[in-house]
């Protein structure tokens, strides 16, 4: 049977692309069939509790959601792995356990509510009008966003990919001119796009009454008088309906059909990001954490895009089995909101970590949102640490190395205006020293200088009054006296020589002019 014309499946909009993204669904011409000013997109997440519980893990195990208690525990939701074992909703938990190893989860309304709020913050990147519909739905007013995201098809593609990145595995969409109609259509698994008020009554009429999520008694009353769909319900006399059933129902029906306004509270996006992900199974290796971490990073990325903000640092806090919490702070060279980059940094950081105890959950915090104004964000990545380069990915490259090797592992070199060898250069952590006090490169030294300097002068053995290094060294004819530094409390007095060993390698050695008058190695020529 073909669906009625006003119920145009989304797929049909998806594939034969030449159709315009304008969703002119109603065939009838005339003012009533013009597209409504608002288009509400409902996202229904029927498996939200299960998806949330497993989103920290890469591997998928059979999970079911149970309600009730004791022997009357019933399975209410089943993920696809559990369904493969033959477990169905409505089974007793005992029967489900008999079919295979399965993890049973209780509903946690508080966690689901928080998760919906997070999803709202994430969805704020698509439209400023976002609304949570508890316990498992979202509403987005998308009329104004269609052009930006390439029509409804483009928007849905982006949404699908994004939801999968967040670890959501099952979702349904529907679009309609009123929020309630969109929600009911999505709940009724009618992947429909209804674009005008004129087409709305017919689209809703076929939906079964249970998509309204009425109280069980009300629903049974309706079934008792032979009313099973919204269409049949709408044919009942209005006053009787209001009297016999709650007046709320009549109001909802009017709102769904657009006869009455349906104001929705505005969603305010958060100023900071702080999310915790509890793991269903303990994780023993740091690398295995990254799947769940990437999901949180995708969430963060969505929130940052929504706020058009960037961050300079983020903090992971691991909750270990023994009750300890360990923070891992990652700081960025350049502000960013690039999820791939943040994920790479996180991976590199945790690749070198050994977990002191198994991890039960982790938190991601990012507080220092910097709101980007008119500046093109890509522009920020095109400068090196000293602002002059055209390297596109230098900051990211540096961060990646630092994440793995430690923040002080990368050093820069500077030549200093000082005649004492150890003071004439500086090797300091990248960005730690004030820049640009390097002496001008045009300063040439007449005296021989080695390419290598030892970190400290290394004491040399002495043979017959001459320094030795795997055999006596032959001193060159030139002697360079270096003195001074008393004004800094680092006085030195040395005679430097170029010395040659039997193999021909040239060393830079000196003899102390005072005290022990020992020989030291200070450099290597090439």
């Amino acid at each position, binding site marked *: 049977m073909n669906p009625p014309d006003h119920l145009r499946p989304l797929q049909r909009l998806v594939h034969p692309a030449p159709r315009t993204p304008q969703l002119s669904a109603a065939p009838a011409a005339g003012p009533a069939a013009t597209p409504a000013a608002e288009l509400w997109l409902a996202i229904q997440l029927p498996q939200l509790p299960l998806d949330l519980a497993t989103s920290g893990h890469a591997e998928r195990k059979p999970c079911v959601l149970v309600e009730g208690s004791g022997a009357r525990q019933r399975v209410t939701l089943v993920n696809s792995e559990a369904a493969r074992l033959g477990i169905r909703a409505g089974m007793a938990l005992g029967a489900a356990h008999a079919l295979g190893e399965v993890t049973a989860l209780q509903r946690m309304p508080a966690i689901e509510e928080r998760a919906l709020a997070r999803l709202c913050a994430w969805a704020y990147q698509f439209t400023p009008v976002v609304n949570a519909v508890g316990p498992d739905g979202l509403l987005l007013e998308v009329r104004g966003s269609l052009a930006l995201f390439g029509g409804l098809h483009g928007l849905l593609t982006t949404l699908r990919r994004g939801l999968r990145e967040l670890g959501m595995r099952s979702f349904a969409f529907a679009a309609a001119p009123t929020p309630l109609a969109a929600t009911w259509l999505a709940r009724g698994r009618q992947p429909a796009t209804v674009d005008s008020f004129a087409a709305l009554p017919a689209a809703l009429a076929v939906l079964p009454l249970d998509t309204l999520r009425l109280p069980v008694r009300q629903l049974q009353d309706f079934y008792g008088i032979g009313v099973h769909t919204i269409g049949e319900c709408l044919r009942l006399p209005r006053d009787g309906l209001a009297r016999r059933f709650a007046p709320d129902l009549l109001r909802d029906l009017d709102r769904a059909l657009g006869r009455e306004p349906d104001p929705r509270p505005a969603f305010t996006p958060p100023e900071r990001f702080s999310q915790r992900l509890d793991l269903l199974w303990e994780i023993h290796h740091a690398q295995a954490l990254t799947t769940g971490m990437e999901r949180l990073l995708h969430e963060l990325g969505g929130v940052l895009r929504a706020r058009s903000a960037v961050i300079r640092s983020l903090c992971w806090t691991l909750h270990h089995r023994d009750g300890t919490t360990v923070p891992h702070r990652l700081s960025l060279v350049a502000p960013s909101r690039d999820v791939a980059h943040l994920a790479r940094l996180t991976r590199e950081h945790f690749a*070198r970590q050994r977990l002191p105890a198994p991890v039960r959950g982790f938190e991601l915090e990012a507080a220092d949102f910097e709101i980007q104004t008119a500046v093109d964000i890509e522009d920020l990545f095109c400068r090196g640490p*000293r602002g002059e*380069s*055209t*390297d*596109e*990915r*230098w900051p990211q*490259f540096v961060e*990646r*190395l630092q994440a*793995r*090797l*430690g923040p*002080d*592992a*990368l*050093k*820069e*070199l*500077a*030549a*200093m205006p000082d005649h004492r*060898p150890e003071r*004439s*250069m*500086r*090797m300091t952590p*990248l960005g730690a020293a004030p820049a640009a006090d*390097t*002496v001008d*490169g045009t*300063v*040439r*030294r007449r005296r021989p*200088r*080695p*390419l*290598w*300097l*030892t*970190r*400290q002068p*290394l004491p040399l053995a002495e043979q017959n009054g001459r320094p030795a*290094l*795997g055999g006596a060294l032959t001193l060159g004819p030139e002697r360079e006296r270096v003195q001074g530094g008393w004004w800094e409390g680092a006085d030195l007095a040395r005679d430097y020589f170029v010395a*040659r060993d039997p*193999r*021909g*390698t*040239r*060393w830079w050695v000196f003899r102390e002019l005072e005290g022990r008058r020992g020989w030291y*190695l200070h*450099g*290597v*020529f*090439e």
Partner: protein
Amino acid sequence: MTLEELMRRARLWRAGEASAEPGLPTGFAALDAALPAGGWPFPGLIEILCGQPGSGGLRLMLPVLARLAHEQRWLIWVAPPYQPYAPALQAADIDLRRVMVVDVETADGAAAPGLPAGRPGAARAAGEGSQVLWAFEQALRFPGCGAALLWPGPLEALTLRRLQLACEAGGTLGVLFRAGECAEQSSPAALRLLLTPQPADDALDITILKCRGSLRARECRLPL
């Protein structure tokens, strides 16, 4: 497919035929003349078998390092055996603002003083699977890098192959300063040089053990 077609597709490497890509001038005329590409193979992995620091291996690289730095590309020194002496690099016309040192000894907390005799101190850390080797490979794969230098311990042929591929992926010059004994190991590096200092003549003998685009071993001598 005929042989002619294969030849025309130019995907066959024929021994004895100079490689099409011109190399980077080494800054030493005698060495340029001896190298089939007229300079360092670029991008590519170069092995300089010179034993401990002080045998002239680094000096060979100074002109090309200066040139790459002037082209705004980074010079990444991965776990060098001693501190590169900044004024000397400057005297060799190397832009210090383009030099980064991966100083992993301090990162690992083990201060290796770099004993003058024997193998360089960093060598122990730069073996297979080490952080140092990882950092070197990342540097080679990073397109903003011009050249990355490493003083490694023993490496397997498979690792060398990976490093050569990393050079090609990043468009970079990878330089390994290795012990002279490594000459017997077969290697996928684009160029392998064996250095023999001749202190009596104040000269450095360079033997080209292997070079892409040439089968013949060649030699040249540079004044020290």
